[in-house]
């Protein structure tokens, strides 16, 4: 130590500076890859290119089993559909069941985000609004509003769960059809309002009308004594979260988009009816509102049974929210179409409507209990849990219910299941230590997590094996080393210096048009191509058992997992003429030109035409011969005789037709003069020609070889003959015509 004496304060300062520097270094090392993985995760949530549950090491995420496939028969499809069909509709219902299942907020919309960050549940209130017809003053119609019930609805629930039937809000419509009190009722409108919910310990102002309170209690089947408060100031809530919320900084903002994604995926598959409408401001505390009219003016029922998604309009335009509403202006050339984009930008309230007669639970209830029984059970247990916390007055219940909490709850259930399967009950709580090694491997920071979530993706891997495998396979910018410990397991994380972000997949995918490979815009039709798996590493037996030992041992050969499984060779070929990449399906088609490309033939003919010292008889023979020799190349003098014979075999008809015998003779004589043909051969060739010409006189045979017709050749050919290609073009055109027909 250079300075033996150091005041305590100095020491403290040094330590804090050290800590600060240390922290800086840590961030410097891990910031960039972490941000990249966050982004990738968000993108995966919005538009996934694969599903984690279909990966072999994520088997636990796949909740379905294929057991039923064996017993599957096509006829069963019809039966199951028939059994699902609702019973024939009785003529008149007097009860409308409203079952609100979810409140969905688009995580991308900035000004709605805070809501989701803070609340896992919102309160939804359903009112009926009667507007009475006033005979005297037509312009002022009287409106009365009755609350018919309210329920708690999860924000962006993970799965498309259906709340239990008992939570449904029922509306008696007996007296609606007829006018009441002598005053004709013009319309009945269902008004949906969404509130923020809060637990009772909150110090913020309460503003809950007595009417609502009582109605809440009666409508909620379990009679939860929970009071709900309306929260005006979002800033206050966020502050509270900061002070008392859980300390998992990465978790909160990450789960939300995932949730949003899930719910949107879930909603995509369901048949849904969509209504868009306008808001009527009536109460201050509601933050979202929407309405649906039940009866038309002719007392016809407008609403039918089914699933609904209702776009909610934001209320409460308070000044504090000014900044939150600031979003990037959409500057795309295509102007937004309001009607179409309304459903995308607005929060959606999902609910189902069911008309039924009193006392009859209806077929829906039966269906619910059979198919989504675990979900329903979970829901009930969850509310119980909340209740229990409230009753005990646990200070921890101050915290608004986070999405994370609900997820954790689910996790523990799943964990239990997996533990049961593995029959080692001592692993109820698995602690994973992440040791982040940085600063050229001299420093490390340790972070403990008691779940099996990937810290970068917030993906619940359920088992430790899956987690480690996922980390290694999906996050190659880091090195992960798994070390088992007695009270858990530790994973050493360091930045992979060798990672060069280069692409090691099939080059075809990059050269293909955007959207063809790894399409994020839905399925694309592609031509099936059979690829050969070039190298497949031995997958050992215990791999399938997901043994953690596997992750311990082989560190050296796990350089690039994608490279092992890449199909085909990593090369891209190009068409020789157009230099356009060859698609895999085109490999069998030979695009290579022969030695006599058509342009060369055309050019040859053209050049010969330009000769001025050659007479009109000589030119055709020269053309015929040159084009022939271009294709059937003659490399030795000895071959000349046979080549000439074949030439005669092919073109005698043409030569005879145009009476070019003397020009042919001249040509052969020239060949003899140049010493490539023997004089004796000349005689035999001419004999051969005479023999052939004696046989061919019929005029219809003369034009059989149209493309090499001397007359054709003499007339100027402006473009090379593209017979073969034109034929292909015609085929394409004709094929299309046939498909249309």
């Amino acid at each position: 130590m250079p300075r033996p004496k150091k005041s305590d304060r100095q020491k403290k300062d040094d330590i804090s500076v050290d800590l600060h520097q240390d922290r800086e270094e840590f961030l410097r090392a891990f910031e960039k890859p972490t941000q990249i993985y966050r982004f990738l995760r968000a993108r995966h949530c919005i538009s996934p290119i694969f599903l984690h549950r279909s990966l072999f090491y994520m088997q636990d995420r796949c909740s379905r089993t294929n057991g039923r496939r064996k017993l599957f028969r096509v006829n069963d499809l019809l039966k199951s559909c028939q059994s699902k069909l609702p019973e024939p509709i009785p003529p008149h219902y007097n009860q409308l069941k409203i079952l609100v299942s979810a409140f969905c907020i688009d995580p991308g919309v900035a000004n709605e985000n805070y809501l989701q960050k803070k609340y896992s549940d919102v309160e939804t209130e359903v009112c009926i609004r009667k507007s009475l017809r006033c005979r005297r003053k037509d312009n002022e119609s009287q409106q009365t509003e009755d609350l018919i019930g309210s329920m708690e609805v999860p924000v962006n629930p993970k799965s498309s769960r259906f709340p239990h039937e008992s939570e449904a809000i029922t509306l008696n419509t007996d007296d609606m059809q007829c006018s009441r009190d002598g005053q004709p009722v013009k319309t009945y409108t269902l008004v949906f309002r969404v509130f923020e919910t809060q637990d009772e310990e909150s110090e913020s102002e309460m503003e809950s009308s007595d009417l609502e309170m009582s109605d809440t209690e009666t409508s909620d089947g379990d009679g939860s004594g929970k009071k709900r408060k309306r929260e005006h100031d979002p800033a206050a809530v966020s502050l509270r979260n900061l002070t008392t919320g859980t300390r998992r900084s990465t978790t909160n903002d990450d789960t939300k988009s995932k949730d949003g994604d899930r719910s949107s995926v879930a909603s995509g598959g369901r048949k849904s009816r969509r209504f868009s409408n306008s808001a009527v401001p009536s109460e201050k505390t509601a933050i979202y509102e929407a309405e649906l009219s039940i009866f038309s003016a002719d007392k016809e029922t407008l609403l039918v049974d089914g699933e609904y998604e209702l776009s909610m309009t934001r209320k409460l335009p308070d000044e504090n929210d000014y900044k939150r509403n600031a979003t990037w202006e959409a500057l795309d050339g295509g102007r937004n179409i309001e009607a179409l984009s309304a459903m995308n930008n607005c929060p959606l309230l999902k609910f189902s409507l069911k008309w039924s007669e009193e006392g009859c639970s209806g077929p829906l209830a039966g269906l619910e209990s059979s198919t989504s029984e675990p979900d329903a059970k979970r829901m009930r247990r969850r509310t119980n849990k909340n209740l229990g916390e409230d009753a005990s007055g646990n200070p921890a219940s101050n915290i608004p219910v986070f999405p994370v909490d609900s997820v954790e709850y689910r996790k523990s259930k799943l964990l239990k299941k997996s533990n049961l399967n593995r029959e080692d009950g001592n692993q109820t709580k698995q602690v994973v230590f992440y040791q982040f090694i940085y600063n050229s491997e001299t420093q490390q920071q340790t972070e403990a997590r008691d779940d099996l979530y990937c810290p970068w993706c917030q993906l619940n891997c359920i088992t430790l094996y899956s987690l480690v495998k996922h980390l290694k396979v999906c996050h190659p910018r880091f090195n992960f080393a798994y070390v088992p410990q007695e009270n858990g397991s530790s994973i050493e994380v360091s930045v992979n210096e060798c990672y060069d972000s280069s692409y090691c997949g099939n080059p075809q995918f990059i050269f293909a048009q955007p959207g063809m490979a790894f399409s994020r815009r839905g399925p694309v039709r592609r031509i099936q191509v059979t690829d050969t798996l070039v190298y497949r590493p031995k997958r050992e037996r215990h791999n399938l058992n997901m043994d953690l030992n596997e992750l311990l041992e082989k560190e050296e050969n796990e350089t690039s997992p994608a490279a092992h499984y890449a199909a085909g060779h990593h090369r891209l070929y190009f068409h020789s003429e157009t230099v356009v990449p060859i698609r895999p399906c085109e490999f069998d088609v030979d695009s290579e030109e022969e030695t006599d490309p058509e342009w060369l033939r055309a050019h040859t003919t053209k050049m010969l035409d330009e000769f001025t010292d050659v007479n009109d008889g000589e030119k055709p023979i020269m053309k015929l011969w040159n084009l022939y020799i271009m294709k059937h190349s003659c490399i030795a003098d000895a071959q000349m005789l046979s080549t000439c014979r074949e030439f005669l075999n092919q073109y005698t008809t043409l030569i005879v037709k145009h009476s070019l015998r003397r020009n042919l003779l001249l040509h052969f004589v020239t060949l003899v003069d140049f010493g490539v043909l023997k004089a004796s051969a000349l005689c035999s060739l001419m004999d051969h020609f005479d023999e052939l010409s004696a046989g061919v006189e019929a005029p219809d045979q003369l034009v059989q070889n149209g493309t090499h017709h001397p007359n054709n050749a003499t007339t100027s050919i402006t473009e090379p003959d593209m017979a073969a290609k034109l034929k292909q073009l015609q085929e394409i055109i004709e094929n299309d015509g046939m498909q249309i027909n």
Partner: protein
Amino acid sequence: MEVESPNINPKVQDENEDENDVPKQVISTKDENPAVNETGPAQKSKRGKGKSKISKKLPAKGLFKCTNSLKEDHGQPLFGVSFCHQTSKDEYPMFASVGSNRIAVYECRDDGYIKLLQAYSDPESEENFYSCTWTVDSTSGHPLLAVAGSRGIIRVLNVSTKQCIKHYIGHGNAVNELKFHPQMPQILVSASKDHSLRVWNIKTDVLVCMFSGVEGHRDEVLSCDFNIFGTKIISCGMDHSLKIWNFDGEDLKSALKASELYKPNSNDKPFPTLHFHNPYFSTRDIHKNYVDCARWFGDFILSKSCENCIVCWKPGSINCGLNQLKPKESNVTVLSRLEFQHCDIWYMRFAIDYWHKYLAVGNQYGKTFIWELDHLDPAKSKCFTLSNIRCTTTIRQTAFSKDGNILICVCDDSTIWRWDLQGK
């Protein structure tokens, strides 16, 4: 019989979108403004002379008024600018500028305000875009922007969805100019340094045909243009030649038809790309240097080389119609010459507005010359000079908005200049 092989460069750079490749040699000729036939001192003297000449000869100033200028942050030359002609009348005129690996889309608001709408940059930092042009998606009606440059990859951007929707690989070298067919919005022609012109169908991603080979260009193709009916293409290049290619032959028509019907996702045979080696007409008599811009003007052709002159000419003799040329026609008839100053470097392109009212070309010192094309007779045609004291660098390309009221000039110092038409 010896025949020169077609000058297609078979070498294809290993381009791809997401990946940083091994560093390639950049085609940097255009960045450094290679002055052809030019020396330093000569420049200076010319400059002084030119100024006095202009002020004496051309008192007519103020046809257009400079209303705005802006500078892009990359500082690299802007080579291309193009107005979107597909927007409706009640929308503000939209244009795109390209340079370096950037593409920027702007909107011309009232009172000279230029609003930046979108900016794209190519993942490859070595990319240098040379040309851009607009078309419209025939199914969705979205405006599409095609860009290409030194890497020879043609990209098509959908500015409505802000995505690169297509990319075409095939050119063996840089692409110098892109043009869409005036009647078929999906037909794109590209002129490339690899001596070829290619015709693409961007709807079915098909390379319809190529114009190159024996009788094609012998050096870089610098510019190309469709005539107003889309029946002919004019191309010009570094081989000092101008070539007219037929675009209405039976073969080509069937190829275009087939390209519409070809389904790349279900057809496992490659599209039979046609290859045209022989132009309809070819001449080397107009210019004696690189021909870097050619445009149709009715049946006439306006072309320029780095000779301070735009020539208006027609193929064949004066009475011969465009479609009645003899097969080996070599005559040309020069109709008129538009002389201007200080434009003797290559890759300077002029623009004609949509209604063929004005022609604008920039020069090396930031001046823009405008001719009214309604009377092309050199005696009558008035030349207007636009100059701004701060605009001093080479103007690479100009573009008129569809109504001809706005002129945009892009410069080597990555500045964009907006000139608005003054009421007469």
